[in-house]
């Protein structure tokens, strides 16, 4: 399952990269934009992976327009699933709760996930060269999981690429954000957990622009 909200700049930026580079490899359900709702999210238990972008707190993860999707006090059936939450601080409480509920593994962040984006790219966020150093390591982590490789390997791909991008970033704030994110990335559960490999599918041309961002 993919949960990709689009209601503000950070969700558009992160979801945009996944729409460009991850969505083509996954089957439904893909909860994009307004479809990323509690009613749908809670009732779709099938699949071996949950990949979510959204705002977060230590014990909560939110969908489009900040609808609550996951809460430590009400965890859906996640047994055996590999879970990646591209969000802030969910590794503190929600990650452990998901593992306690039987998830195979979880990747998230202990602190805020921060990056620099170009607000002029809100309609085609996948073309944002300032967000790419932060978001492509996340994309490559997820695609490593979808290749059927171990979650631990995918986690290493993400943190290694973040630090490599920081080393060559021209903008020092971009580099600081990357090091901060790499330091606070968290893998919990079984690092050998994996999902069924998906075909490697890439679209040669980007998707059409997202609907305009209403600030």
């Amino acid at each position, binding site marked *: 399952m993919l949960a990709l909200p689009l209601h503000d700049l950070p969700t558009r930026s992160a979801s945009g990269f996944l729409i460009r580079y991850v969505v083509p490899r996954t089957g439904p359900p893909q909860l994009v934009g307004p479809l990323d709702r509690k009613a749908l999210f809670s009732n779709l238990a099938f699949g071996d992976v949950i990949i979510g972008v959204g705002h977060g707190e230590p014990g909560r993860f939110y969908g489009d327009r900040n609808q609550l999707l996951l809460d430590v006090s009400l965890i859906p059936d996640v047994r055996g699933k590999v879970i990646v939450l591209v969000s802030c601080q969910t590794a503190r409480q929600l990650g452990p709760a998901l593992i306690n509920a039987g998830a195979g593994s979880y990747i998230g962040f202990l602190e805020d*996930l*921060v990056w620099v*984006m170009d*607000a002029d790219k809100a309609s085609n966020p996948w073309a944002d060269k300032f967000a790419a150093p932060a978001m492509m390591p996340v994309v490559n982590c997820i695609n490593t999981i979808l290749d059927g490789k171990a979650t631990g390997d995918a986690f290493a791909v993400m943190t290694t690429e973040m630090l490599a991008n920081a080393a060559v970033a021209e903008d020092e*704030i971009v580099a*600081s954000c990357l090091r*901060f994110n790499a330091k606070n990335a968290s893998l919990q559960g079984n690092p050998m957990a994996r999902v069924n490999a998906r075909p490697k599918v890439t679209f040669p041309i980007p998707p059409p622009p997202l609907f305009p961002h209403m600030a």
Partner: protein
Amino acid sequence: MSKEFEALKDVLRQPATPEAMKEAAHRFREYDRAEAALGKRSRPTLVSLGLGKAYPTQIDFRDIPRELETNPAFYEQMQKIMGEG
């Protein structure tokens, strides 16, 4: 590391006093001016995926000095981030 960024990091090592926050705002303006002069960015915005924070989760670089000067929570968040730079 540019001298503007180094100066910003130096200020951010101080606790969030009104004087330090004002100085950090000044240093950020200097840093942003130097970066903008290189012509590399169009509308840089610092974003995060937090919720219910005492600081904005999307802030245009133009507005960062004001936030640094007036919001101790944002100053402290920048301290955390820059501490890794």
